């Protein structure tokens, strides 16, 4: 490590963030706007992406790296695996402000998170498609109140225009337990087995 640079390297702290919400509320669009700053009117479900990553500078010392898990469509027939929630630090629960029913579904996801995820998970309730004001079915104040009652962050955004997207992640980043995560990841490194490491055993096989 070089001691010469005047400014220390910011520390990178990684967190797992999961997306939840009914099909077609724009979960993937929100992430793509955040990660790639792009929007696609006819986005199909993401193919081949295990998860996306994006970093946010919290302050000069700390950079937050989000590992963002998309549902890969497994939410459609209530088939999300418990693994999805496992060790998640943050969740973005998305509904569509033009679909009343999507907020009802969002409430169920929030309950599911409170049951399955860890106690200190940071949850944000996000109303998407704020650009379609004339088609609005979900009252802003109503959803906001709901979020307050459950102790969640609340935002209305538009993945299409990009309005409010970065704010979601910035606000989540500020609520995440950075120090605790740093300690945890150090402990974890100590006894994890890395399967991607090639075998060190070069013993000749008799039978190839």
């Amino acid at each position, binding site marked *: 490590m070089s001691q010469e640079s005047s400014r220390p390297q910011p520390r990178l702290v990684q967190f797992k963030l999961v997306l939840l919400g009914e099909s077609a509320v724009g979960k993937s669009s929100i992430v793509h706007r*955040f*990660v*790639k700053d792009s929007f696609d009117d006819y986005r199909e*479900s*993401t*193919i*081949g*992406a*295990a*998860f*996306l*990553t*994006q*970093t*946010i*500078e919290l302050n000069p010392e700390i950079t937050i790296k989000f590992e963002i898990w998309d549902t*890969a*469509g*497994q939410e*459609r*027939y*209530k*088939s999300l*695996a*418990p*693994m*999805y929630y*496992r060790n998640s630090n943050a969740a973005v629960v998305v509904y569509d402000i033009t679909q009343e029913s999507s907020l009802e579904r969002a409430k169920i996801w929030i309950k599911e998170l409170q049951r399955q995820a860890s106690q200190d998970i940071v949850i944000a309730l996000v109303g998407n498609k704020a650009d379609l004001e004339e088609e609005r079915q979900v009252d802003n104040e109503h959803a906001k109140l709901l979020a307050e009652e459950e102790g969640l962050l609340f935002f209305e955004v538009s993945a299409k225009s990009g309005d409010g997207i*970065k704010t979601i992640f910035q606000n989540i980043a500020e609520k995440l337990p950075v120090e605790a995560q740093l300690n945890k990841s150090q402990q974890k490194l100590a*006894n*994890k*087995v890395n*399967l*991607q490491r090639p*075998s*060190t*055993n070069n*013993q*000749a*096989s*008799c*039978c*190839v």
Partner: protein
Amino acid sequence: MDEEYDVIVLGTGLTECVLSGLLSVEGKKILHIDRQDYYGGESASLNLQQLYEKFKPGKSPDESLGRSRDWCVDLIPKFLMANGELTNILTHTNVTRYVEFKQIEGSFVHRYGKPSKVPTTEYEAISSSMIGLFEKRRLRNFLLFVASYKDDEISTHKGLNLDIDTVDTVFNKFGLEDGTKNFIGHAMALYDNDDYLNQPARETIERIILYVGSVARFGKSPYLYPLYGLGELPQGFSRLSAIYGGTFMLGTPIKEILYNEEDGSFKGVRIDVDGEEKIAKSKQIIADPTYFPDLVKNTSKLIRTISLIDQSQLPFKSNENSGQIIITGKELNRKNDIYIALIGSDHKVSPQGKAIAIISSIIEGDKPPHIQLEEAFKLIKIKSFDHTFMGLSDLYEPLNDGLKNGVFISKSYDASSHFESVTNDIKDIYFRITGKPLKLTKLEEGEFNAVA
């Protein structure tokens, strides 16, 4: 509203999920259904609540066991060989991104009334207290032979032909005693009875190489185990399948299996989706044996017992927190070995201070099954059976290979302590379905980084 798929998969056990993932990655359109509302079928890991519902319905777990969700109890005990084929499939498909692994701390064989560590290298063989002085030299020579054997170098063959000479012939060539043969065959080659002794030696030698190589990869033991239990594996592969476009429907019973009238081949399934009847069609179907009871046969009967124990009951000398103990049939005048799998809070399958012991064997004769396992219960000091769950399972395999009717049925998970037979079944079904052998190529990471 009918829909057409390339392959329909029934059941979310490990075999089905790996195949679902591999086929999705190749671009096949997959519909994956399970009648139960959780992943894993027989290869699920259950929390305390689910465990009691399954084995002791109506009873609730007592408080001393702690929180339900802190337990992940496997129904079928197995470990991954570090150099085994499942490890290979996991790394090539990047499913390692979703599942973390830790070593199992020890591999033991029960000899002279106590568990002893299985020696795996020439060095360990020499220092093992399990073997007499002269026998040590003979074992060392045998292990050196295995380590240096090369198919294309006759000088390394020591005059043996692995495709003709039996295992016993090879053992005798090195003058090994019966006791040594027994632990090599059972604790290293991991055969659960003595039938292998009269077979050509090649498979046994391959198995020993797999064992020794797996130990060498991470040390301690040849075994790896996923944090939070084996149930993570089918979940991981189902995510792989979904990411590549697979459609998943849990909690969906199959109303009817449809066949073509002309030739009796598979046509599709009738299911209910949100109260609406739907027919999903495909030419090929993969299923676990429970979905086609008429097309499978019963091969043997297994007993598996699950005991929730205190960590202090683990019978290890060096304070290992996890391990496998094999009690060979010879020690007990049985044909088949008894396996004990011991795991706990290190692998996040039990609360702190607790552990899980899973004992399994093939049922022999008429003695009540739990009496057959008596020796194992003694070893882990189980006196009361309040926290022990007993399950008898029939093992099934398909009657047909599915090439005619398009119905490809997997085998039940067998008595072996690792996944090699499971991956053999996976590769075999893959070959029958696609007409080509499974060739693993490393997947590109489906991930990109950007800096805001």
